[in-house]
């Protein structure tokens, strides 16, 4: 009776070991790169003022953001970068967001015009600010975040487009640091992700632990929706953001790999860990649950949509490493995790638990998880030092406690998301926007 359970639990055991080894390898690679960068740039690292640096269009969609919109837009305009334009796309707000912006920034109307390349819900009005002509605002019919961003991409005039949320607070040099990464290889780097910082261990592990390594391997399959920079010409050429998947940021990044890498193998999607915007995590468990379910459905949907890259060498590390890693340790892991809890309970009911082994296994999992958190904290402190000592202690302890409640909870949420995905109970099946066939090399950006 217990034999199948034992076999499954053995699989889970091996899986845990594989997860720990691969994730610790990613942390080690990230730490190596962070230390290398520190040795290269040192403490006095200052950004060079590049005479030919590309202009940036900062796009932020807004929907019913009245309480924060004016201060948020002021903060976006305070970014220390030139040439800059800020394009706020009001996605049909009903709370007076548009009017608040018109009053605060003395907006004057511009003709919307035609020949917009990406299809979106209609733009009703377009404005430019009299008090700060770098600010544009488009008022459009409601169509969701990706649709609003696509409208912004249509209107953007600068070579680089940075997509963000209105409630993100950019560090003053964040945009310059993004451009610094583009300038390393302007011919091949097509997108660069920044770091949305918050005092949560999970974010730290994800951004400093894994993304530096994935960037070094050229296997990044997602840039944060809160801070991602793309080349405008490519965004338009690949058809903009998908309005029909939940993980539109991941979908866009994966689509860029899929469409570009077969013809332009040196195409890179990079990560700029030093480019930081501060963002808020969901305020309560309800919002967190919604966010995680959306993310997981988005992940599963994108793995399905871009399955042709899996295991294919022509897509580089994305096909051979990143996608297999995500299938194993992001898509399948929650199922095995929850199965493990169930087996544990069943064995406990049958009195078949060998407690000494259970304790040893639990200690391994706990210490392995904590090692990831500690490694990420070390990377953060060595490379950037943005956190105070007490924040480091707080984030470290939080990471230790996560295993008792947060990880089981998110595993259950992700199982729920998987069920929704499998039964098709989600907002429409995803499809990939079809852009223009990319037959030419992307234009290099000014250095």
């Amino acid at each position, binding site marked *: 009776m*217990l*034999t199948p359970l*034992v*076999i499954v*639990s*053995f699989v*889970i*055991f091996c899986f845990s070991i594989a997860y720990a080894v691969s994730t610790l390898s990613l942390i080690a690679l990230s730490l190596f790169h962070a230390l290398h960068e520190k*040795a*290269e*740039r*040192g*403490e*006095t690292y200052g950004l*060079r003022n590049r*005479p*030919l640096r590309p202009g940036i269009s900062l796009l932020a969609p807004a929907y019913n953001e009245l309480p924060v919109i004016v201060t948020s837009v002021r903060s976006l305009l305070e970014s220390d970068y030139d040439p800059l334009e800020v394009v706020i796309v009001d996605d049909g707000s009903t709370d007076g967001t548009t009017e608040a912006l018109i009053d605060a920034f003395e907006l*004057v*109307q*511009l*003709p919307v*015009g*035609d*020949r*917009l390349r990406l299809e979106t819900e209609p733009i009703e009005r377009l404005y*430019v600010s*009299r008090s700060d*002509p770098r600010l544009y605002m488009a008022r459009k019919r409601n169509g969701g975040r990706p649709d609003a961003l696509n409208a912004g991409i*249509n209107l953007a*005039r600068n070579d680089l487009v940075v997509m963000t949320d209105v409630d993100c607070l950019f560090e003053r040099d964040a945009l310059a640091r993004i451009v610094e990464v583009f*300038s390393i290889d*302007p*011919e091949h780097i097509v997108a660069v992700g920044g770091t949305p910082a918050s005092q949560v261990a999970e974010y730290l592990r994800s951004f400093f632990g894994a993304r530096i390594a994935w960037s070094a391997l050229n296997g990044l399959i997602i840039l944060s929706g809160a801070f991602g920079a793309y080349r405008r010409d490519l965004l338009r050429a690949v058809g903009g953001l998908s309005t029909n998947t939940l993980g539109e940021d991941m979908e866009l990044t994966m689509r860029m790999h899929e469409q570009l890498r077969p013809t332009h193998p040196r195409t890179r999607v990079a990560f700029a860990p030093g480019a930081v915007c501060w963002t808020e995590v969901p305020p309560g468990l309800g919002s967190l649950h919604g966010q995680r379910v959306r993310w997981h459905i988005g992940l599963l949907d994108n793995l399905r949509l871009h399955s042709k890259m899996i295991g294919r060498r022509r897509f580089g590390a994305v096909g051979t490493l990143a996608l297999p890693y995500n299938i194993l340790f992001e898509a399948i892991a929650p199922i095995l995790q929850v199965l493990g809890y169930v087996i544990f309970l069943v*064995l406990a009911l049958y009195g078949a638990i*060998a407690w*000494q*082994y*259970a304790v*040893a*296994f639990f*200690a*391994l999992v706990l*210490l*392995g998880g904590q*090692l990831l958190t*500690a*490694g990420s*904290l*070390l990377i953060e*402190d*060595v490379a950037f*030092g943005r956190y105070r*000592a007490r924040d*480091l202690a707080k984030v470290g302890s939080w990471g230790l406690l996560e295993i008792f409640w947060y990880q089981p909870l998110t595993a259950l949420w992700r199982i729920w998301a998987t069920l929704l995905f499998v039964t098709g109970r989600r907002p429409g099946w995803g499809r990939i926007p079809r852009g223009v066939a990319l037959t*030419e*090399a992307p*234009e*290099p950006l*000014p*250095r």
Partner: protein
Amino acid sequence: MTLLHLLGATDLGKQAWFWSVTVIVVGSLFLLNVLLIVVVHAHHLREDLLRRRADSFRGRFERLLAEQGPGTADVSPFIAEAKQFSNFERPLAAAMLAERLREAPLEDRERALEWIRRVGAIDVLLRSTRRWQPWRRELAVRTLGIVGAREAVPRLIECLSDRSRHVREASVRALGRIGDERAVPALGQLYADPGSVAPGVVYEALRAFGADAAPMFDRGLHSADEEVRVASVFGIGSALAREAAAARLDDLLADESPLVRAAAARVLARDGDGSVPEGLRHATGDEERSVRRAAVSALASYDDPEALRLALHALDDPDRDTAVRAGETLVRLTRQPLVGGEAQRAIAVTDAWPLEHARVLAALGKV
């Protein structure tokens, strides 16, 4: 528990070797965790202390510069003080000096350079270009460039082949900033054979040499590397006299690379004047939208009715950005002495939205 059942060794827990292995693995992980946490906090504490020490030194060095810095005749008190600087303080001092002199007028920089030579800092900086840490080499190279130390040129040329990209780029910039002609062949070689330093960085340095760099840009126009050709277009625009440059750029508007054509159109926008060149006229109907955008923007520099005609035509371009630029060009043309009146009359009877767009932006000072 899992391994136990599979191995059929239910009494494994009683065996000493199993517990030894478990204790070793769990203990190692525990120690590694403790070690990492200690390292994180020790590193944080160290950084905090260094930050305070650096702040304190900056204040002290600021006072020292004010009392005994550039302009003082007797440098011996400064030298006596500087000899006390630690390994940690010297790069801070270099960075502060560089920062103060970066935007300083030439006269101030020359006076400062003289003082820096007398206190022996150039030798210290030259020695620092050989340090093992790349960031210290880069800082030394950058500082030598900012102070304009000509005696450092041979060493800076050697640094062009440093193993760190940042040091190589800093050397290129430093040589461009110093502007000593001994650097031209080495920079030219680097420009012709890209790879170790991006052509755009070398282009910026070469531009500082004015007409002396023109032959290099000229050769660059025939490079197999597209990026070199694009940079050379900008180089030709800055190194040659307006008329000579315009003739070359007109030819380049027929280049096979759309990037080169767009770059040529952009440079023509800066160096316009006179009648619209034939190449630019064709470029406004180029198959590549990036070329059309640049060409339509360049029309604003030509006080020629042909520019007006082409801009009006571009209002109907299928590319939105080209049409928007056409509107802006038309508004700009109204300010030209010859064609301005005609442009005003033409746009008065045109109701295309790109024109209205440009008028609003012009009222805000953006066009």
